[in-house]
């Protein structure tokens, strides 16, 4: 039976409401570096109840345990704590480093820059452990970049779930979030899948 770090029993109190920051994630903008399957990073952001569901996995390439996940939000958020469910048999990440509001982190930069906060992770198959943040630094977060530099000894790192707890502030950092102005029509972007019928 799982028990949270809060002093109550999870089955009675609805923890799910707290871990609903995944709804504020701009899921189309989620990218990862060194993932084996392109797009698998999006699958690890799901409701709290599904955290032990090991079917969704973000796996790094073989022989390389490093992973970087870039998470943009639709509004500015304040993050209180982070929960990471890793894989079994040493595939779980052992360290986590967070960078805020930067979209240009790749592996060389991740190792050079000092992160906003660093954590030592433990194997957390059932998602019981959460890692609190230095809350004062995590106010007004428009994008979060998580770097997992190492794991518990396996060839590759597997992450099944990343949960974020906090508040959404309804404020947007950029005036225009993500627009693409069409300079020229591009047939491949305008494929119709449905037929329209008009009733006059």
């Amino acid at each position, binding site marked *: 039976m799982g028990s949270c770090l809060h002093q109550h029993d999870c089955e009675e109190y609805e923890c799910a409401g707290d871990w609903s920051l995944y709804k504020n994630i701009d899921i189309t903008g989620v990218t990862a570096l*060194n993932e084996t399957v392109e797009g698998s990073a999006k699958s690890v952001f799901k409701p709290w109840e599904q955290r032990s569901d090991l079917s969704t996995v973000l796996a790094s390439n073989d022989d390389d345990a490093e992973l970087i996940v870039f998470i943009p939000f639709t509004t500015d958020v304040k993050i209180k704590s982070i929960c990471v469910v890793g894989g079994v048999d040493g595939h779980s990440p052992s360290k986590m480093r967070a960078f805020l509001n930067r979209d240009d982190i790749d592996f060389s930069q991740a190792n050079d820059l000092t992160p906003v906060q660093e954590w030592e992770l433990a194997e957390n198959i059932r998602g019981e452990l959460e890692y609190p943040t230095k809350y004062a630094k995590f106010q007004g977060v428009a994008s979060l970049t998580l770097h997992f530099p190492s794991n518990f000894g396996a060839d590759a790192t597997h992450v099944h779930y990343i949960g974020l707890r906090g508040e959404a502030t309804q404020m947007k950092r950029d005036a225009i979030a993500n627009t693409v102005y069409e*300079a020229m029509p591009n047939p*491949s972007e305008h494929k119709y899948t449905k037929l329209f019928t008009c009733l006059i």
Partner: protein
Amino acid sequence: MVCMDNSEWMRNGDYSPTRFQAQADAINLICGAKTQSNPENTVGVLTMAGKGPRVLITPTNDLGKILQALHGLEVGGEMRMTSGVQVAQLALKHRQNKHQRQRIVLFAGSPVLADKAVLEGMGKKLKKNNVALDIVSFGEDDGEKVEKLEALLNAVNNGDNSHIVHIPGGERVLSDVLISSSIFTGDGEGGSGFAAAAAASAAAAAVGGGGGAYDFGVDPNLDPELALALRVSMEEERARQEAAMKRSAEDSTAKGQQAGESSSAPDVAMSDVGLVDTTDKSKDMMIDDDTALLQQAIAMSMAQAAQAAAAAGGGPATTDTSMEESGGDDQDLAYALQMSMQQAAAAASAAQGSADVNQVLGDQSFVSSVLSSLPGVDPNDPNVRDVLASLQTDEGKNDDQATKDKSK
């Protein structure tokens, strides 16, 4: 980011005219295709040999700047592939728009000096940073090169986003082989439009040439209008050439044949432009301006060719005003027919002054068969009939004018 090989090995002439020139043409084509397929694409070029890798132009979507940067390059030195690719990676890392995907196109003409293990390590690093790699292997082949490059490709490849093309020397032109390769088409359907235009003109110039999965390098499912328009233009061209050949065979003068062939090449280019107008039915206003300018350009170029052509060029310009009232859709059609007939008229008068070709195109049955194969045009439609009738009477006017000028 395109990595160009400008080492000493590029002086060799086994690709015409030199390896370096063939490479430059291929790079021009790639840059054009990428910038056309998506207006947000950017391309940059760097050279790998010489004193060291040097970025000629940082990623930009301005084709003119790219072409200018490629101008006046010199061959020399040895290619440094690994440092070249690393510099390319750095240039891509500092791109303006982080949503663009990163890709390196590597032209490997000289022998590959690096170890296979080093190349595989480089490939893994590229994969880790989400950079795709296209390799164009040509020029020198010392046995190991193919193996090494294949190993590099396997290390980088992530879900089939990277490709390799081997181009052995010989008669085939580097750019032509590239057009039909996966480097152009593997990009998505957008690249095929540009490749189709290039392939169409290449195929017309080299009779029976041009490889590609589809008839004209354009998938009929993706762009049926363009495919149809290309097919129509090919049929017209074929009919015109048959008539031209018949005429020159009858007269049996070498002079007639030469003129016919030399004018066929610019005609193909013109008819491509004409087709762009017909397929663009939504831009009626712009077409008026475009074709007016085109009429002038055609008139000017023809005037340099022959005296008689000048009269023919002046003729259709006046008949053009009568076309204005022909009605919506048919206007575009009329312009296209007008232009192709006008070139045919110019070519005919430049060669022999006979109106055989005009007769072919003025032939009601041929034109109506062509029209019926076009979507949305009914040959029995009164508008279309009016257009055809007026075209024929204008042809009569044209001949009269030409004969009047001659008699003066």
